[in-house]
Structure formats: C-alpha cells, structure tokens
C-alpha cells in the first residue's frame, strides 16, 4: 500500500491493441499512452469498446494482438510490466468494472476486510480509509448486516468503488462509476476521485455516459468509436464539453 501523501508514477502504454469478438472488432488501438497521473475519461456510445478496453488493461480477456504495458515506480523500484505476462502489477492496480468483482455472500464490511487483508492493508488503515467514505456510504453500506447481494444497485456500486480504492492503487480503473448512484452520491464520488488524484497522483481511468461528470473531473478525455480512439481531447475548464456534445449530437 502506498502512503497517501506520496505521489506515485505509473504509465499505461497500449500498443497495437486489438480485440475481436467473431467478426466484430471491439478494440483497435495502434498506440496510446495514458501518462502517469492522468485522470482519463473514456467516453463513447454503447458498444464503442470502453468496458472491453478496461478488461484488456486488467488482463481479464485476451487480446488478439498487441499489449498493455505498465511503466513506472512501485515501492521505490522502477517497474515495466506487460500485464499479460506478469501478475505483480495487480498490487498497484485497483478496479471495479461490474458485479463480478463483488463476493456477494459477504457483508460490505466483510468484503472490505477481505480485500484489505489480501492487499496487505492493516485494520487501522482500513478503518482510516473507510472513515473518508462515510459521507459517500451514507449509513447504508458499512455497519450493515446485509449481504452484498441484498443491497440496492447503487450501494453495490459504492461497495465496488470503495473496495477498488482500499489498497490506494497507483492505477485506478472504474467502469461507469456514476451508474445507479443518487445525485448526492454522484457528487460525492466526483469529489472523492478528485481528492484521491490530487493527493496520490494516481493514474485514474473512468468511463461514463455522463458527459458533465466526465468533463467535470477528467483533464483528458478519450473518445472511442467502434473500438478506435478517434479523439484525444485535452479538457481544461470543461472545454471538451462542447466538442463532446457536438459529437453525441446532444443539442441538435
């Protein structure tokens, strides 16, 4: 686990990355670098390949071609890892993509404790970590005797996001983090992610259909269409919002 006040570096390099499902090309990226400390928003219509790209980065599916390489520093040592060839990059990477990340027969607290223990996080560190999310959990997640499977979709989402951040990862990947959340929780998670990014310098990747939220927190946005990154947009003071609205034909 990285100390909160230490800035970390971890870059993700996508090289000649291709994933096909039968005839359909889901991801096709020649070369793309997600720089250390980037907070990258991934946007695109349904089927654009956002979740597939995340799964490729997490080595949960096999690429037909190409590779995902993480380059940076871990515990003071320089590292360069092809995610399909080694496994230790999981120590500095946290992710929540969907419910298949959750062990639904545990209570949220049991799940947090499990994730903490296997990630080398002490009970005290976990307690400290959860305290930060007290407002986000709004009394409906921690301290409950409900199993995760009995929680609402929104609360499951909260459990997944919090668990992904327990080990204070240098790379954080969240697929549709605003889904199922009520407005105040959406606001809270935006604040949490921003603070986490500012404090740790972690490389954060989020995908979302919510353009406002994405442009609010992501200084860099990648627009995906049919598996190809068609635009790499620098977003300063929400400058990308207009370009994205035009692309998605929101105001027509």
């Amino acid at each position, binding site marked *: 686990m990285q100390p909160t006040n230490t800035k970390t570096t971890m870059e993700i390099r996508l090289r000649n990355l291709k994933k096909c499902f039968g005839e359909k090309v889901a991801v096709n990226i020649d070369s793309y670098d997600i720089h250390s400390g980037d907070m990258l928003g991934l946007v695109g219509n349904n089927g654009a390949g956002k979740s597939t790209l995340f799964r490729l980065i*997490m080595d*949960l599916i096999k690429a037909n071609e190409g590779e995902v390489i993480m380059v940076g520093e871990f515990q003071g040592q320089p590292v360069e890892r092809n995610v399909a060839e080694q496994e230790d990059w999981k120590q500095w990477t946290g992710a929540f993509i969907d419910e298949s*990340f959750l*062990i*639904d*027969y545990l209570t949220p607290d*049991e799940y947090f404790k*499990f994730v903490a223990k296997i990630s080398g996080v002490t009970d005290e560190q976990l307690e400290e970590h959860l305290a930060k999310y007290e407002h986000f959990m709004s009394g409906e997640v921690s301290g409950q*005797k409900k199993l995760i499977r009995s929680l609402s979709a929104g609360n499951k989402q909260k459990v997944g996001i919090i668990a992904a951040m327990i080990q204070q990862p240098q790379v954080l990947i969240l697929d549709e983090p605003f889904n199922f959340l009520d407005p105040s929780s959406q606001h809270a998670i935006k604040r949490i992610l921003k603070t986490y990014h500012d404090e740790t310098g972690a490389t954060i990747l989020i995908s979302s259909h919510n353009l406002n939220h994405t442009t609010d927190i992501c200084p860099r946005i990648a627009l995906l269409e049919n598996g190809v990154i068609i635009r790499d947009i620098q977003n300063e003071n929400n400058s990308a919002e207009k370009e994205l609205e035009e692309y998605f034909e929101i105001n027509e």
Partner: protein
Amino acid sequence: MFEKNKFAKFLIYFMFIYYAALMIFMGVVLPAGLDGSMASFHVLDSGFFYVLFLDFWARFLLQQTPAQQVKPLTVLPLKRKKVLDVYLIRAGLTWGNLFMFFFLVPFAFMSIFYYYGWTGTLGWLFGWWLLLVADSYWYLFCRALIIKNMAWVILPIVANVAIILATILPEKNVLGDFFIDWMEQFIFWNPLAYLIPIAFILIFYFANRKLQAGMIYNEVAKTEEKEMKHASEFKALNRFGIMGEYLKLEIRMRTRNKNVRMSFLLGIGLIILFSITVSFSDVYDGAFMQNFICLYNYLVLGVMTLQSIMSYEGNYIDGLMSRHESIYDLLRAKYIFNLVMLILPFTLMIPTIVSGKISLLMNLGYMFMVAGLIFPGLFQMAVYNSDTLPLNTKMTSKTNNWVQQVISLVVLFAPILLTQLCEVLLGDVWGYVVLIVLGTIGIATHPIWLRNIYKRFMARRHQNMEGFRASRATN
C-alpha cells in the same frame, strides 16, 4: 453455442448410458455376491431402504419441486391447484422413477426369476416401482420443507438414520425380517403387500398438494433474506493471515449459499450414513465391503465438493483475478479446508476402530491416501472447470467436459484399485504403511503441486474466464 449444446447433449447421453451400464453391471453381479445363507433378493429386501435412500438423495440433483415448475404457468388463466395436480401426478408417473430399474431388473432376473419365473419377477418389480413412486413423493415433501427452511434437511437424515439404527441395533433384526416377509409377498402379487407403498403414496400426495400449494405464492414472490441475524467473524482464523481470510471465505460460501450448502450437507450426511453402516451393521462385514465403505467415507465429501472446484467462484472470478496471486491462496485454503474436514469421518470411525472391527492403520492409510494422493487429483479440476455454478438459484443438471469426466472416473475408481493393489502386493500392514507414506509425501508437497495447478490455471485463465462469464449469463 449450438456446437456446445450438441456436445453437452452428447455428454448427458453418455453419462446416462455410463451410469445405466454401471447399474446393470451391479444388478448382474450382485446376486451372486449376496447369495449365501439367505437368497440374494432376501438380502436386498432386508436392506431395501438403502436403495431408496440413494434414490432419494440423488433426486436433489435432478428433480424440481412442482411449486418451482408451476411458477412460470401462474401467469396463464389456469387453476393453480389443477396445474399442481398435473405436476404431482407427473412426478409419480415419470420415467425418471424407473432409473433404478437398470439395477433392479437384471437383479430380479438373476435371482427371483430362477425361483418364481415371470409372475414372481414382475410382481416384485411392480412392488419396487410403487416404492420408488412413494420415494418420489417423500422427496418432494422433504424438498418443499427444505426450501422453506434449510433446517428441515434434518428430517430425511433422521428418518434414514432411524431406520438404519432400527435394523442394526437390536440383536435380532426383526424389522429386516419383516421387510423380507413383506416384500416376498410382492412376488406372490399379494394385494395387502402393495397397500403399504400405496398408502404411503396417497398420504404424501395429499401432504404435498397442501404444502406445495402454499409454496407457489412463495416461489412467485420469492425474496432474498434481507438481513442476517448473526454474522460470525471467525476471529480464530485471523492468526492465519491471508490464508485465514480465504478459509473464512470457504466457510461463508458453504453456509450462506443454498446450492453449496446443500451439496456440503449431502456429503456430511453420506459420511454419517457410511460411518453408522460400518460401525453398527454386520451386513457389510466382508473385508472388501468394509474397505470400500471406509475408503469412500473419506472420499465422498472431497469428491462432491472438489469436482466443481472454482465453479462457484466463477460468480466473482473477475474480482479474484484482479488480485495478485489470489487464486493460489484460494487453492491453498481449499486444500487446508478439505484436510480439516477429513477429521470428521476419522472421528466417526473411532468407535469402529475401538471395537476392533476396522484397524486404525487402515483408517490412517485411507485418510492419508485421500489427503495426499486423491485430493491432488481432484484439484486438477481447478485447471479445467470453466462453467459457473449458481450459488443460490435452482441448478439444473450441469454437464462436465470430457477432461473432468476422465478425472472424476479416475478419482472414483483409482483409489479402490490402488488400495487393493497395495494390499495384494504388500499385505495388509505394509500396504497401509505405504499409503500413509505416499499420502504424507502428497500433503508435505502440497505447496509445490498447488503452485503447478495455479500456473496451469493461469495459462488457461482467459479461456476459463470466458467460460465462467458465458455460463454466468445463462444461469
């Protein structure tokens, strides 16, 4: 997908034929083996309930309750009770109730036919059919209660144990003698003899009708238990660090998920049944049968739970796979959990060991062999299992791929061959000593072979994860 279905169908037919052939073989061979002071069919009749117990527990894997079947029809303009009647009658008349006939028919022709010809054989088989139908209704009744509350699983277990104890505890097996006399009357087509199963059928038909009618609504409006009454922290396991966390996961998986719990309890039930049978019954006092039951007593739980190793984890495999070496730690915890579970059959066998019926050395030999030689075989399934099994929702029969089938068959039959070989080549004492030594080596080297399994699992990870995801979607 179509090809996969075709392959699955082929496997279903293959397994059906395989088990049918096995039963026919038993039916042909067993009469000669049981013939002694009593005719072989008398021996079977005196212990007919063992066949019914087997039939009863096997139904958990294959037979749905009418309430579950009626559920999709509740949206149609049909009277629920009438639909229920149709399904209940169908449960009685289904061909599935005749599966045991693959064993009973050859058995009858190899025994009864010689003495009583066609009429006697048919009368006996007709009686058996009524008993199997009665068993079907008894199963449906118990299953409905168990769905309501898991604690009801105790009912069939108590019933089974009570009947076994009633036949083996008294010095003279009065009940067994009664069973022989009663079932002999099937051979003579005595209507009074048939009244017993018919009365049983009627009682449980109407009991089911009442119970299941109430359950249809529950099935339709099925809700998850919202809050747990008690959630143990298993603090004692904290001292084992990461391993302790995975052990907690193993325990919670078995206690909080219906399907896993059912399979686990079934295994425990069989261990108790085997132990009681060996301890108190003299029916299986032959050396081979004692060896057989004792060995499978240690083997049964492992086979039942490890055959589908990783299949339940398929529900959250992405979460596990996104953690560093979590699968290796999980496999280690599974191994340790199964090692600890071997204490149960050993403890239950202590009375038999003390009474001198079975030697301590034999028990240790089998226990170590299962722990150090058989478990490594069963754990190979972790590399090949790629179908997610639902943790709670109704599980229809699942088929395994051919690698799994081969491993299952080897694991089921190799131990008995190995033990027999050791005994023949080395004699009783040295045979068991060799098994203990080999088993100890297997246990001591578990980090090595588990690491090997883990590496092979990782080599197949994408293929397996794809399978887990695809089957999760269809569950």
